């Protein structure tokens, strides 16, 4: 009996050993995978992560189109009063914290912050020649995303490494000044590190960083800081106005001499509504397209973001920019034989700068979501007008203000402005609106200068900021308070 028991034990032991029944069996490498915490071992690793940080720029299509819809430039449009209800409500200034489109902006911009922070968290891990370029670009991108967040939501939580789960209940919403302080330090580092020419088209340059820094100063009414950095950029940067305004927004006008920073899009990869932020195309373009359009030059879209009659009429008859910026569909149809449908809030006008153009047969579907039109995020004209505003509003030099303003007007074949002081300020404001109409800046230009009441339905001391998403307030479990008035 005893022998047999020993035999049994022996058989078991052998079988266990043969079958690999020890805890080692569970120790297996995860096949073909890279652990994110053991990364950044080479220049390629840093570059690859940087591509990931750039990726979220493509989701800023939402910021551009919603920024325009929120302003007095356009109406929401679309198919019906309930088509993209979140946009409709923003257009009418009746939006609430329950708004999936605002939630997208919050989520996507923080996703961008985190991807930039991923690189910055590991910035000291591996050294190689030229690393400071990648670090500077990562800091530029973090500033870009934080600038969007502070514009839209005001105080937001700040962190210089990745946010972790649970941070929403412990990290407060930093005051706007603190957010700007981080933006400024990131952009100063980037301006001092980057050069005016990018290693690849589409990457941020010294010019991009200086322009954004100037803009951040201007948004804080730091006019002299803004004037210095913007003037330096105007003087020393390689940028100039494109002679023919009409070519800027066409495909061949992408990444031209006027482009200080441009978000890159392409139509070679497919996309779907399930993951709009995954698209490599400019989604705002398809949404701005002419409903049921059939005709030359353009392709159809969803008829959102339609310019108002008032915006159209704001242009002088002889302003060459009007017919580039705004398409009068009736006139166009009459002259070309094109046909079109009328959507909700049809005004007869479309945002021509970002209308979908006729595309190659190889454009990937869903074609409405993959338009290749780059978003001209910061144009040199914008830089000139910001500089003019800084010089004027900071009472530094109306001469210089007029100089820069008139440079923009001259390109538009308009007469020079000769006014000074407040009249000059108004002229600059007006010029910004006309020059940049359809590019997503107007709402923020209005509220940062206290002119929000020009927007229908605008409530002062409330609508300057958008509400933090309902879900986020809940996640914070009392850590964050909703913006005033919501």
């Amino acid at each position, binding site marked *: 009996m005893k022998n047999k028991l020993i035999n049994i034990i022996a*058989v*078991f032991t052998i*079988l*266990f050993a043969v*079958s690999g029944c020890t805890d080692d069996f*569970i120790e*297996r490498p*995860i096949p073909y995978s*890279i*652990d994110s915490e053991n*990364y950044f071992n080479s220049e390629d690793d840093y*570059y*690859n*992560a940087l*591509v*990931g940080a*750039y*990726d*979220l720029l493509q989701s800023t299509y939402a910021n551009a189109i919603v920024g325009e819809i929120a302003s007095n430039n356009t109406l929401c449009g679309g*198919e*019906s*009063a*309930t088509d*993209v*209800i979140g946009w409709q409500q923003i257009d009418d200034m*009746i939006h*609430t914290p*329950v708004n999936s489109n605002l939630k997208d902006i*919050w*989520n996507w911009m*923080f*996703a961008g*912050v*985190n*991807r930039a922070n*991923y690189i910055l968290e590991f910035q000291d891990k591996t050294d190689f020649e030229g690393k400071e370029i990648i670090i500077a670009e990562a800091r530029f991108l973090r500033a870009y995303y934080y600038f969007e967040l502070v514009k839209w939501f005001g105080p937001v939580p700040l962190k210089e490494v990745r946010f972790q*789960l649970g941070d929403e*209940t412990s990290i407060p919403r930093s005051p706007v000044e603190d957010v700007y302080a981080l933006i400024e330090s990131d952009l100063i580092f980037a301006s001092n590190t980057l050069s005016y020419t990018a290693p*690849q*088209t*589409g990457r941020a340059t010294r010019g991009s960083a200086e322009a954004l820094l100037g803009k951040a100063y201007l948004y804080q009414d730091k006019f002299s800081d803004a004037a210095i950095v913007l003037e330096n950029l105007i003087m020393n940067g390689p940028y100039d106005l494109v002679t023919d305004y009409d070519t800027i927004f066409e495909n061949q006008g992408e990444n031209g001499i006027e482009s200080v920073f441009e978000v*890159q*899009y*392409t139509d*070679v*990869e497919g996309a779907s509504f399930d993951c709009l932020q*995954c698209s*490599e195309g400019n989604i705002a373009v398809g949404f701005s397209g002419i409903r*049921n359009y059939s005709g030359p030059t353009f392709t*159809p879209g969803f008829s959102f973001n339609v310019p108002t009659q008032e915006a159209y009429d704001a242009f002088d008859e002889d302003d060459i920019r009007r017919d580039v910026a705004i398409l009068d569909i009736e006139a166009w149809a009459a002259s070309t034989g094109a046909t079109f*449908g009328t959507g909700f809030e049809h005004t007869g006008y479309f945002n021509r700068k970002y209308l979908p153009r006729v595309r190659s*047969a*190889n454009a*990937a*579907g*869903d074609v*409405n979501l993959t338009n290749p039109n780059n978003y001209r995020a910061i144009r040199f004209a914008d830089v000139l007008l910001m500089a003019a505003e800084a010089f004027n509003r900071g009472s530094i030099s109306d001469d210089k203000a007029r100089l820069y303003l008139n440079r923009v007007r001259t390109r538009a074949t308009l007469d020079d402005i000769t006014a000074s002081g407040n009249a000059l300020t108004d002229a600059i404001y007006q010029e910004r609106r006309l020059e940049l109409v359809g590019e997503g800046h107007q709402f923020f230009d209005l509220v940062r200068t206290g002119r929000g009441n020009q927007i229908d339905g605008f409530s002062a001391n409330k609508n300057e900021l958008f509400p933090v998403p309902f*879900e986020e307030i809940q996640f*914070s*479990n009392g850590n964050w308070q909703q913006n005033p008035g919501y």
Partner: protein
Amino acid sequence: MTTKLLSLLFLVFTCFAFGQEVDIRGTVTDQASGQPLPGVNVLVKNSSKGASTDFDGNFEMKNVQINSILIFTYIGYKDQEIVVKNGDAITVALVEDSEALDEVVVIGYGSAKKRDLTGAVSIVDSKMIEEIKPIKIEQALQGTVSGVNVTTQSGAPGAGLDIRIRGISTNGANGPLIIIDGYQGDIGVLNPNDIETITVLKDAQAAIYGTIGANGVVLITTKSGKKNAKTSVSYNTYTGFQESSRTLPLLNATEYALLLNESYAANGQALPFSNVTGLGTGTDWQEEILNDNVPIISHDFNVSGGSENITYAISGSHLYQQGIIAPKKSDFRRNTARLSLGVDLSEKLRVKANAIYTYIDRDAINDNGLGSVLFNALNTPSTLNPYDANGEPTLVPNTTGLGIEIINPIAQIENTYNDFDLRKINGTVSLEYDILDSVTLTSRIGYNTTIQESKSFAKQVDYGGKVFDVPRSSVSQNAENFNDYTLDIFGTYKNVFNESHDLTVTLGTTIFKTFGNGLFATGYDVPNNSWEFADISLATGTSDARDVGSYTFDERRLSFFARAQYAFEGKYLLSAMIRRDLSTRFGPENRVAYFPSLTAGWIISDENFFDDINSVNFLKLRASYGVLGNDQIGNNGYVSLLDGEATYVFDNSLVQGQAIGVLPNPDLQWEEAKKFDVGLDMKLFNNRVDITADYFINTRDNLLIGNIPVSGITGVSAPGSGSPTVNAGKVENKGFEFAIGYRDNLSDDFSFGINYNITTLQNEVLEVNNSTGFLDGGSFGVGQLAPSRMDVGNPIGYFYGLQTDGIFQNQAEVDAHPSQNDLGASAAPGDIRFVDINGDGNIDANDRTNIGDPIPEVTMGLNLNFKYKGFDFVAYTFASLGNDMVRNYERTLTDVNRLNYVLDRWTGEGTSNTVPRVTTAATTNNVFSDYFVEDASYIRIQNIQLGYTIPAKFSEKFKISKVRVYGGVNNLYTFTKYRGYDPGASSGAPIGGGIDFGFYPIPRTYLVGLNLNF
């Protein structure tokens, strides 16, 4: 061995030398019911001679020696011995062994007699499967077993089903563990006719499967031959015709046009139909796409038998089913072949092997939710003709009110091309060795290996500016292979001490490994834009984006377990188990877990004091408690991997980088199910009545919740990222199960049986461990807050929305009510009035509350069978009460067609208090509220069947022991108030289930069939 053979020869020799032989025949019946018993083993004692009864209980044996003893054995009945006196026919009535309940039930790493079971176990046998005629085996569990609920994901051919045992507990995989002949397998591809029994372990009895038994365990035993049984051959076939079990009442063309005019006028817009006369009823799009007389065909063939040392079973089957939508484009073909073999190599060494080969070919249309064929049929206006003047499918006009997501469903079917093929071999080889009389060592390996290939062709097509337009043709091909094996090594020690202490100890280990890979590729520019040429070898066009992909996985589990089963005097039963598990699903620190359990039983009817109670034949009380685990979550959730999407454009071309994928949770650990059960089993009135009752409390702790919504600041919304899986809460399911069966034979010709079971279920969330105290999930409409929620005190996944209070009848009522502006539009007469739940004088998202849940409070099954002479009749019904469903298959576009309940809409003061006005203007009527939550309770007659068996005296002339013909109907009728296609459908999601995106209706099937036994 040699001596044995010699003695056997000697025995045979003596027979020949001294015996006088006769040929005998006879019949074996069940004493209680008088019904013939098929498959009874008849052995001549001390010889190898034997036979088994046919389907009419008849047997025949030649050359049997006078005065030899015949032993009749049958599972669940007492053995009986008869002495052969002469050649007269023998009639034997076997008595059911109620006291012994000798039926052997597999319980995992062993088996137990049914009477000795101390856990809550339900069994479905091959007879019941034969009656229900399931196309997929999961259907045989619906309504037949208490505590089990089966929901369909779709009525499409070959679509998946979800099994839930005792309710929904976890957010991960809710499905039970499926064990086929000892190894982990896939229930979805089995041929139902290959199955001998299905055993469902519902309580802590499943703890022997520690790791993965938390959702319950379904043990499937496939058919094998019987020893000393003559070859039996059976052939079964049926053919059927299917049709939709339901169509929805939609507006006809005139109703549609009038409604549209009204909604445009309400918003001050021009009328879309200036003249509605002559529109008539228009097109019934459901009729255009739903087909009648859609065929289903099944054949299967079984051979089984055995000699003294060898058993065998061989089977083959073929099933072909077309879909009621697009029969030619959506179908399911399943062919299987199976071999089962058992050999006693010696008295001590036994080997068993079986292998199943399965081939499945499934073609499908877009059959579920937004963009599906049905969705298009429901939304396309009835004013449109199906075909244009050229006989081409009409394009749905590219007008504003129809959006870009609705296309002609006929065109959609025409342009759908895909193919899915699966080839699978699964099986097991096991070796049992009796090392000692009391110790058996078992070693077995079970395996699954699957190759899956699929192809889909995106035809270049232009629907006129819709999202379904394909500007450039492409063909996508996938090849995946999945493999796993389960290796068990365990020893069983079994002994009886002092005649009253019965002890069984099992000790062993299991290793499980699953691994595989997939490869995906797309080719562009398919020649001739045709399915015939749709293969990457011909479609040589490429895109600038990456059009290939792959993945690999390797997941493992290692377990050690021990179990002791002890019985004292056969009436006090105790079983204790412990299992130690490791799984690669968790990080290194959290990999090990221990799962203990204890079960006990008391057979009260064996006590002396019970002797006088004659009406109760058997009574057992049992109780169990145990902890089980769950690791059914995505792979590698504990580690942050660079598998996110990082694609941007530099220098005008795509560049690929690296980004973090799904957010990790390094603290992931086992989910624990604490299962408590008390139950009793009872047999009454000469075993005619059979009762099983259970009360259970299942508490699920450290609930594993995948894709848990988290704050956006973590970057969770980045492309290719996703929410982490967390241990986030505690859910309790408690309920009562009761099953009663009654069978009797009223005369020699007439017998009947009736079985009823009822399960109540109360689900309550006890804890949610995240900062907000709740979890949201699911989706409703476009851009709305998540409609389903999990929080403390409510059932998991309950619907969280606004409560309605009728319709505003006039402006005064609107003015008197708190403002609804914060919902996104101001109210007008005819709009839904919402309740100010929080009483702050303002209606907004903070007024949401519990407005129903998708979990049935009660499920019931009622099954009947009658037998009169050659006729037999069965009926299976299932009821689900108290489950709610959200109506989410309506598009909110202005010009789409609608269900005809809108005819009862508000059109002026006093006209309606339930259905709001129609208008193209923005309203808050589509905000998620109880207006969209419907009671989806239902009773379904799942199956009725009438059969006739031709008397044996006729059939035997053709050497056929049984000929039965039958006709039946599956899914005959569903009684429900629910408006949608199928109240029994669900996506299966614990948070976000019960939301109807347009489930494909289940088919009603008329069957005729034939059973032949040789």
